[in-house]
């Protein structure tokens, strides 16, 4: 029942890429939060969160992304979301947060810009 959130981590040039897989809801958001915190300890120039394998995010997941935004701004690290799926985009629009994030279609684009 308690299926852990799988988060793949990789480095592309100066970007650290986190790629969670599955839903990011109340039960999974804490794991995502920890993964982001750990990733930022390495002080990458850029953090890319690849959401292409995430089909559902609730307000807990959105709160985690907002925390990531806050932490990266404080650490002068660039944050970009990649591969945002339609249902996740809808939630970003409803919460009027879409404009707060840099969003790119693919991880490759996110790492280049």
């Amino acid at each position, binding site marked *: 029942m308690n*299926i852990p959130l799988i988060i793949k981590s990789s480095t592309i040039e100066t970007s650290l890429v986190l790629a969670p897989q599955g839903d990011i*809801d*109340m*039960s999974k958001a804490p794991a995502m939060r920890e993964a982001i915190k750990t990733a930022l300890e390495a002080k990458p120039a850029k953090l890319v969160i690849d959401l292409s394998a995430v089909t559902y995010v*609730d307000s807990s997941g959105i709160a985690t992304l907002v925390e990531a935004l806050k932490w990266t701004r404080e650490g002068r690290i660039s944050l970009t979301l990649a591969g945002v799926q339609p249902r996740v985009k809808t939630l970003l629009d*409803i*919460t009027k947060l879409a404009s707060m994030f840099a969003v790119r279609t693919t991880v490759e684009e996110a790492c280049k810009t």
Partner: protein
Amino acid sequence: MVSMEREPEISIRIFSDPHLLATVRGAIDGLAKCVGFQDKSRALITLAIDEAMTNVIRHGYGNQTSGMIWLHMWRSVEPRGLRIIIEDLGKATEPSKIKGRNLEDVRPGGLGVHIIKETMNEATWEARPSGGMRLTLAKWLNAEELAAAYPSPSTPEQSEP
């Protein structure tokens, strides 16, 4: 306490365990599809109910996983759509104090109520006389969904005399 004149299409009772929410989301999405909601609306309905149950777990039961949550869903005919009731036995909140926060203040948390009010046609919180809270939600099909799921009978073709 549940009553909407007839038995609901789906009734689920779950523990207040966040790990169970994904299972419930599947049931909600399935019934919404049967009623005629298209993908975007189904995403909004699922999200709103998920947020409501998350709020019950977090605020009603203080993240304890042993509380009970009841979810009942009815297919509505007039107007076409879904009616939903969510009940719990957690800590009650004064309904007038349940408000979405100002979105200009960009910070984590506090988005659930805003999402529920923004996505559903009706959302009413009330304290249950026997304890806990009751949230009544409704979502109606939009014009496009109505036309696709419940097309008007076509006019019979005129035959040549």
